[in-house]
């Protein structure tokens, strides 16, 4: 057992966990943040994507203790109160989900993708960047649309702020 200490969605949290505990299980079971899903459990599907120190990471392929000391953002940390994050709003607007199981991971991947491409995104880039996220409802078309729309909204926001 070790003490795992993290900053999760702006809150400092800590707890004892076995060293073999995966980050996704620590988030779900110790912290009750069940928005992050376990899909394939083999680093392929991306349902478990969270941000660790600002980078999208598959939380089923990282030990909680490896992340200790890091800053984590999960799907629960994106919205500002009742206001959806622009990526969440775009998924809603463009019907970027059917059953919704892959959606938290899709949104965390999309947010990371948009942050890494402040110059904007095109469809080919979005599809290539979604390599590690699988949607079994085959809803990619609208997911891509939602990400392109969110990317536009977010770059406009940045220009205004500047």
């Amino acid at each position, binding site marked *: 057992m*070790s003490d795992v200490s993290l900053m999760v969605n702006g809150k400092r949290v800590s707890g004892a966990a076995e060293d073999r505990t995966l980050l996704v299980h620590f988030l779900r079971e110790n912290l009750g943040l069940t928005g992050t899903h376990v899909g394939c459990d083999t680093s392929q599907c991306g349902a478990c994507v969270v941000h660790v120190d600002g980078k999208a990471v598959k939380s089923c392929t990282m030990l909680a203790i490896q992340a200790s000391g890091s800053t984590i953002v999960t799907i629960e940390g994106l919205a500002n109160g009742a206001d959806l994050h622009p990526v969440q709003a775009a998924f809603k607007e463009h019907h970027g989900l059917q059953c919704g199981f892959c959606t938290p991971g899709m949104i965390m991947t999309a947010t990371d993708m948009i942050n890494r491409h402040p110059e904007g995104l095109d469809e080919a880039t979005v599809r290539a960047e979604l390599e590690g996220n699988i949607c079994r409802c085959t809803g990619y078309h609208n997911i891509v649309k939602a990400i392109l729309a969110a990317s536009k909204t977010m770059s406009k926001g940045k220009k205004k702020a500047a």
Partner: protein
Amino acid sequence: MYSVNYHRAASVTDAAKLVKTGDAKLLSGGMTLIPAMKTRLAAPSDLVDLSRIKELQGVKVSGKTVTIGAATTHYDVARDEKLKKACPALAHLASLIGDPAVRHRGTIGGSIANNDPAADYPAAMLALGATIVTNKRQIAADKFFKGLFETSLKDGEIVTAVSFTAPAKAAYEKFRNPASRYAIVGVFVAKGKDGVSVAVTGAGDDGVFRSKEIEAALAKNFAAAALDGVKVPAKNLMTDIHASADYRANLIAVMAKRAVAAANA
């Protein structure tokens, strides 16, 4: 996953001490080791995490010499501006590994120490004539890769960096398995002051290797057309559910052609 004790190394010296604990394994990005532990294919008693050691991170380019710290992630290799100028082929190769989340964690040192027969980096290291630097010695790439998941690393020896001379021209092309996205065949072509070298991953039944037939054809004329009619023997190539040895042999020539065209572009 079986129970394990985690240690975070503060330095390479610290890691070298910690790795003597029980049946310890070195952990870098964990993109192979953690899945192997989850399926109980690996069951180390202890893990020594190298990923936070600052001295193992970063890309340095000095003149024609490129040095990449072992704990540098694929993401950081792919986006390094100095490397994109010195050896764009290697930055491009890094951008093709796994997916964005995997590239954020996986490291060059972890990839070469694991020497997966379908990994991308071993082909680059071999074709570039790279030197693998450990905490004990320097090993030439052609002495380092020993077969499927085998290297010349001794127990507890830690890869600290890789180093190579930037080639005049180079490119990497891979044909992916449509499901796993691993290379069915990946070919790295490099033209440097010592001539042309061509290394192949994903295809050899003993891991990464150099293709003499393709090297001989390109030594005379470094052009895609020089490979017209060149036959790669299927002997010693893998046959599995994804592709036969003959199919892989043909793909090697095709990928090499594409790589040469890209290197000349």
